[in-house]
């Protein structure tokens, strides 16, 4: 594992509740905390549209295993990865692994595309990298349960509580 991880703000119980809100009859079998590797960047972003307001800090996360970049909410608390988290990281399937430099480029690209779509073209924005983290581990809950006769596995975001059913 790397050095820093987001602290899970969704507990195991809250993760189950998020799923049971949708599927009340699901029975619990197992819950595992899995960490997914991202690179994280914080940019200072200034645009004249906002006049004298203070320049913003724009947070981006780039998935190191897929290259997917997105602008995130301001990050929650970052914590040192402890011993207990060792071994909970996901393994790389080798679909689209990217380097840290590629992650940095994609972080810039996603902000630029968003800026173009949101601010249009009247004035130029200014962008400056303030922070970068080669590895930030994001917690997710991998829940296994039974719904009737069907065995279900669902990934619940450890930061937001949103979910996605694992296809199998």
């Amino acid at each position, binding site marked *: 594992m790397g050095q820093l991880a987001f602290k899970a703000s969704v507990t195991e119980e809250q993760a189950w509740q998020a799923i049971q809100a949708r599927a009340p009859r699901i029975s619990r079998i197992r819950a595992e905390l899995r960490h*997914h590797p991202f690179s994280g960047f914080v940019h200072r972003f200034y645009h004249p549209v906002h006049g004298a307001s203070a320049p913003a800090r724009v947070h981006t996360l780039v998935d190191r295993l897929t290259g997917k970049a997105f602008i995130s909410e301001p990050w929650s608390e970052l914590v040192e990865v402890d011993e207990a988290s060792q071994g909970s990281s*996901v393994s790389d399937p080798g679909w689209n692994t990217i380097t840290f430099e590629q992650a940095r480029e994609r972080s810039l690209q996603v902000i630029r595309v*968003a800026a173009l779509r949101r601010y*249009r073209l009247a004035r130029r924005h200014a962008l400056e990298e303030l922070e970068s983290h080669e590895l930030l581990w994001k917690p997710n809950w991998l829940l296994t349960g039974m719904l009737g006769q069907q065995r279900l*596995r669902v*990934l619940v975001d450890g930061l937001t509580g949103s979910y996605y059913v694992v296809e199998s």
Partner: protein
Amino acid sequence: MSIQLTFLLVYFAAMVVIGVWVMRRSGAGPEDYLLGGRSLGPAVTALRLQSSSMSGYMFLGAGSLGYTQGYFGMWYALGDIGGGIINLSILGRRMRKLSQILGSITSIEYLEHRYPSKWTRLVAAPIALACILFYVLAQFIAGGRGLEMVSGVSYPVALAVAVGVIVLYTYLGGYLAVAYTDFVQAIVMLLGMLWILIATLWAVGGLGEGNRAVAELDPNLLTMWGKDLAFQGEWGIIVGALLVFSVGYMGWPHVVVSHMAMKRPSVARSAGVYALGFNILFIPGPYLIGLFALLLVPTLADPELAVFKVAETILPPFAVGIVMAAIMAAIMSTADALLLQAGTIASQDIYARFINRGMSDGQMVWVSRLIILALAVIGYAVAAVDPPGVAAVVIFATTVLGSAFVPVYVCAVWWKKANVPGAIASMLVGAVVSVGWELADLSSRTGLGPMLVGMVCSTLAIVGVSLATQRSHPVPERIRRAIEETAKVGRIPASLLAGQDSQLAAQAAIAGRE
């Protein structure tokens, strides 16, 4: 100044005031602004997208089809209404997952990731840009025609004003809360269209009476086979008409981008219901108004003005101004989205990829500005000198895009053997065949529409060339594994399916492998 023009100007002023007021009131800083959309409710989300989708075509092209071909135009309307559903069911789930796995930000980039070669982007980007030019051209013409009618100034002057307003809106939109102005514009468009439709039905004595009167002029117009039953049994043409706005629509880059976009699942679900409701209320309107224009304004020299002229005939002047505002709303929101898409393709997919990999933020803005200005100048020149029909241009552009891109997008997620040479051949064949078919007017000789022929040819190209080049250009193993993962779409309980966050698709697939 006419009452119509006054109302139009008041409308524009109101849009600016709303945009600036919401922007200031929200007090959102750049960070919130860049994350835009997260706080928007389903109604705003849905209607702002619909206002971008419904273009000047609906007010000029669709009315023209109703006026000249009667209920035949409904084939296009049916395709349009069902387009979103077909999009979601065929492409949606798998494509969202694959785009997550491959980390794509723009639609052209997605194609290059799936078919990994710079040639993929070199072929795809110019085709997309050319088609965007045609679609924007249609918006310019529609805006020019509308302003010409309302203001009474000559067409070239009205066109220049329309182009100027559209480009200005695209450049300066950042100063406005565009999501909310688009939302208001969608409501104005819907109300405007319904107003003319209801007034039209009132004027002709209701739907049944109107149909009876049209039947006296030409009973064939009440069938779905066109004037003089020209398309009776011509299933090649009819299937093509159905395909244009259902399947062909999938080829538009800004539509594909929306498939890849990440939205709050709860909002997306409700937004879909709002969008469907909007389409059902809005889309049939112009075709019906065009049809009944035969009774109200029977001697039109230009059928594309059918909706305008009906409005002018049956509505009071102030209402014509409001309806005109609705038309300009449709034109501006669509042209704005397309021009920004062109700016993204030019700066991200061409300039930053092939010319200057270290592109600065300033250069990105300048490249986008220049391409938008170039499109505006070229568009003005073509629209001023020899303006084609809006319907013809929109259908042509959508046909070429659909023929060039739909088989490539569909095979990307449904067929593991689709490779780079196959994709490039498919895009080129689809574009060349559909353009050639149209220019040579082969539809009337063969009874087969260019959309149908273009898609069949481009599908054959991707299948044939991919199979022939499997040894020399195998699909990379990592892509094959990604597609295999994408294909795992097991049965998911409906209650869970609807609330999924597609942003987690790749993370779930990776975590679930162990």
